[in-house]
């Protein structure tokens, strides 16, 4: 039963990883931008929520409603004012600039909040749990997982059923021809980053409620996000959710073998899948 329990806990953890991954996947899909600062932006979101919760004296769930538009606006401005200037045929400049951004965010958080671990206090719900047969499931992890499913479903809907999603897909296919349709690329990129940061805000707030965080943890969140994207297959949102779950389960099973194996076993499973299915388990089927 312990093993079944580990799989269930890992699946629920995978929802959080899927949210790390979704924002990363989205901007790579639309504008071929690899955002090295993504993990730090997740952590930044958690700190924004922390300050919001303290200033307003409300629960992190309420702060979420504020953090999402704040981070989305930040993402739009970041793209328009900084990242768009680096976009071109060469993928190296945006890579370097987001790397620099990552360093800046980490150090700014360190200066503002110190290196002490922080946590978003959600109250009694954090420890609430219910039993399904012999397995005990925490309410909080279930909420996180359900939110991840809703976020993925929402992104899927935006991509395939709205004018915005059409603009994203067209820009992803052929940037110059999309311009001919009257779509201003700089604005479309800004909107893509805004949406990515909205998802990041949700991921950051739930990260902060599930575990403690400090300014240095962004890097490993970036890696988990990358791994989930690659396992699931680039450009496939439901695949990204599956990738997150596989990574989460690999980690909890590894931890069950030996507590030190948690992160390692996730990497091993990732490398294995990359070796046998270089395009991921569920690559997008198109030309």
């Amino acid at each position, binding site marked *: 039963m312990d093993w079944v329990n580990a799989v269930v806990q890992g699946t629920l953890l995978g929802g959080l990883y899927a949210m790390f991954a979704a924002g990363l996947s989205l901007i790579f899909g639309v504008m071929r931008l690899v955002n090295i600062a993504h993990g730090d932006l997740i952590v930044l979101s958690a700190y924004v929520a922390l300050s919001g919760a303290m200033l307003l004296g409300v629960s992190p769930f309420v702060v979420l409603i504020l953090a999402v538009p704040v981070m989305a606006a930040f993402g739009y401005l970041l793209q328009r004012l900084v990242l768009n200037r680096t976009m071109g045929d060469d993928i190296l400049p945006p890579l370097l600039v987001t790397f620099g951004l990552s360093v800046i965010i980490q150090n700014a958080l360190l200066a503002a909040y110190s290196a002490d671990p922080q946590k978003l206090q959600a109250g009694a719900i954090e420890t609430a749990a219910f039993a399904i047969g012999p397995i005990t499931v925490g309410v909080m992890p279930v909420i996180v997982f359900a939110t991840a499913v809703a976020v993925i479903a929402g992104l899927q809907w935006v991509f395939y059923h709205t*004018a915005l999603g059409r603009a994203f897909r067209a820009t992803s296919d052929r940037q110059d021809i999309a*311009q*001919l*349709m009257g779509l201003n*690329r700089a604005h479309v990129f800004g909107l893509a980053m805004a949406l990515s940061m909205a998802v990041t805000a949700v991921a950051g707030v739930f990260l902060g409620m599930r575990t403690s965080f400090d300014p240095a943890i962004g890097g490993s969140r970036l890696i988990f996000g990358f791994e989930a994207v690659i396992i699931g297959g680039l450009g496939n949102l439901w695949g990204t959710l599956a990738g997150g779950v596989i990574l989460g389960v690999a980690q909890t099973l590894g931890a069950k073998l030996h507590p030190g194996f948690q992160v390692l076993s996730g990497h091993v499973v990732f490398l294995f899948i990359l070796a046998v299915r270089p395009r991921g388990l569920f690559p997008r089927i198109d030309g």
Partner: protein
Amino acid sequence: MPEPILSIEGLDAHYGDFQALYGLSMQVARGEVAAVIGANGAGKTTLMRSVSGLIRNQPQAIRFRGQPIGGLRADQVAALGIALVPEGRLLFPSLSVEENLIIGGQMGRPGPWNLPRLYDLFPILRERRHVPATALSGGQQQMVAIGRALMSNPDLLMMDEISLGLAPVVIKSIYEALPGIVGEGLTAIVVEQDIAKALSVSSRVTCLQEGRVSLSGASAQVTRDAISRAYFGV
């Protein structure tokens, strides 16, 4: 010549250090069909890309309804009412046939073209509207490319080698649709390798050679001789 809708004066265009157009000048009158011909590499596509804003140029070199547009971005040019059917069609592979058409009309410019009317012009597209655009045959893809441009209700429609790579019978059916497209005040520029085709659909013809205008005149009056001289420079 009546009031030109498009006026190009001394246009130079470059790809990096390479100059593709040299002081090119050309006028297109409102409501006419103008043909642009020329050998491979003469600069026809470069001219289309310059007018549509995909290549940015000196602002004053290109005027549309009197307004300088040479320095505008492609989306700004499109909003003014210029649409391009690009060489090689370049449909969006991730979008269905219908989505390709809808995105062509996403600026919401008013005018005669909408989905039902387009499906009446090309009925086969109505049948196949939910398949990915690039799953269609070459001729059907060209219909989508033309439809996508028409959906923006342009005042100036530019078509770059729409018959390239298509079977003669398909070319014929696409050109048969042309009279239903122009008219209603739409101005068109047709780029063609097929000289006879170009002359038969247009009222004026401009021939390019190595980035310069080598001939320009009324399509009904230019002689075969003058064209082959302008084409090959012999």
